[in-house]
């Protein structure tokens, strides 16, 4: 597996020099700038060595200062998983490019992240709030407060 991953890291580095590739506890993790996300996504899906065609999970994370999105991608051909992370620092108006054209399965995940974190995805086919109403704010952000429904000890 490590030989396999070595290959993976090398080829990702050669594709995008700025991307930070680290060996995480479980998976290889790539940290990429949001502007380069789309190009990396295309590369990860279409390159035959990569073949990450299965969008397993897309999660939004509030890192405190930054808002981030974490993509867990899997290759059905090679049966390996990779993690792509990206973050934006603009909390007021976070914008990111949607990966829905690459992985259609990300559509609902991105809608959910928009709903709960307020990250706007450009090029998303149908970016509306999924669970909540517009008046509810973005509850999964760490600075979210609700005097009525959240009791802090």
């Amino acid at each position, binding site marked *: 597996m490590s030989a396999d991953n070595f290959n993976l890291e090398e080829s990702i580095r050669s594709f995008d020099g700025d991307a930070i590739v680290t060996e*995480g*506890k*479980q*998976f290889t993790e790539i940290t990429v700038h949001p502007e380069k996300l789309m190009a990396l996504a295309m590369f990860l899906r279409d390159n035959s060595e990569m073949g990450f*065609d*299965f*969008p*397993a*999970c897309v*999660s*939004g*994370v*509030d890192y405190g200062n930054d808002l981030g999105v*974490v993509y*867990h991608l899997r290759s*059905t051909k090679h*049966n390996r*998983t990779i*993690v792509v992370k990206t973050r934006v620092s603009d909390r007021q108006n976070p914008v990111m490019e949607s990966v829905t054209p690459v*992985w*259609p*399965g*990300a*559509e*609902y*995940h991105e809608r*959910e992240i928009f709903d*709960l974190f307020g990250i706007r995805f450009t090029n998303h086919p149908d970016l509306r709030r*999924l*669970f*909540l109403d517009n008046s509810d704010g973005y*509850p*999964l952000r760490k600075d979210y407060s609700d005097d009525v429904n959240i009791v802090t000890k």
Partner: protein
Amino acid sequence: MEEHLKNSVTDGQEEYVLNIGPQHPSTHGVLRLVASLRGEIVTNIEPHIGYIHRGIEKMCESLTYPQIIHLTDRMDYLSAHINNEAVCLNVEKALEIDIPDRIKVIRTIMAELTRIQSHQLFWATFGMDLGGLTCFFYGLRDREKVLDIFEETCGGRMIVSYNCPGGLMHDIHPGFQKRVKEFIEYFRKTLPEYDQLLTGNVIFRERTMGIGKLTLGEAIAHGITGPTARASGFSCDVRKKEPYSAYDRIKFNEVLFTEGDTYHRYLVRMDEMRQSMDIIEQLIDNIPEGPYAVKMKPIIRLPEGEYYQRVETARGELGVYIISDGNKNPYRVKFRSPNFVNLSVLNMLSKGFKIADLIAISGSLDLIIPDIDR
């Protein structure tokens, strides 16, 4: 009348907008589908969800890991045990604890029983969706036997909460093996009844064959998992791909079909019940001796880092993504629930079919709404 429920005009033809749900007999919960129709033919489906969004992910951020277990029961309530297991496995992996074989085997048996009862309820409600009400009672009759075993083992029937980080809440009941064997013997006799009542029925076949086809490429690109994906030939069984608990030591087949229509999504689940019975039979006589739980620290703190664990629930791949900052509460928990992803193809599958087919297709996706909303 709400604005979006007014009949709309597209391509010069007026469309009949029908609001299916959130209270409707065959949405199995509070799913709301706004369907645009042209006559009986569905042109567009827009799912409206969030009616039972409880913010489980937010709640998890202020709870400890043993407490999170009890919230996961409430997501996919038909795979409650498997959901518990996902969190436990993730915590155990993060703490690098070796789990004794006894726990692994018991967890696997319970997980397969959960899968059987979930598929029994699927069969029951799917038959009901297609208008065969009798199926419902046959399915529930047999599901009752599994729930009795659950009740005897852990006190709960649906919301079991039997797992805890490091093992099980308590040991199995002394009569557990006998009861499970009796159930397997009983269910081997009654499962053919299911086929007689529904699978072989001409009307049933006509209603489901060739309806709502999902191709392999679409299944992968949309992230579909579970029986729904396996009916399209997507080999995605986590039990095979990344064996957890005791799945690495048993023989079973991953049920795969290539047609991807409603009928084969149904067949996958029927065959999975047989496979689950095989799995249980291999394990039930070989439960090793040992403790039922590993001694854990009173307060569980995961080392800083990110942990992802996936398991195969009755409906597909459940991924638990935990980000820990070293505290007793997780920094962020994300549940990648199978139903949430599977719902996203409903519009694609049901376009061009009739209302009755829409019900059959959404039934064959076997959606559990609390799992979608979380």
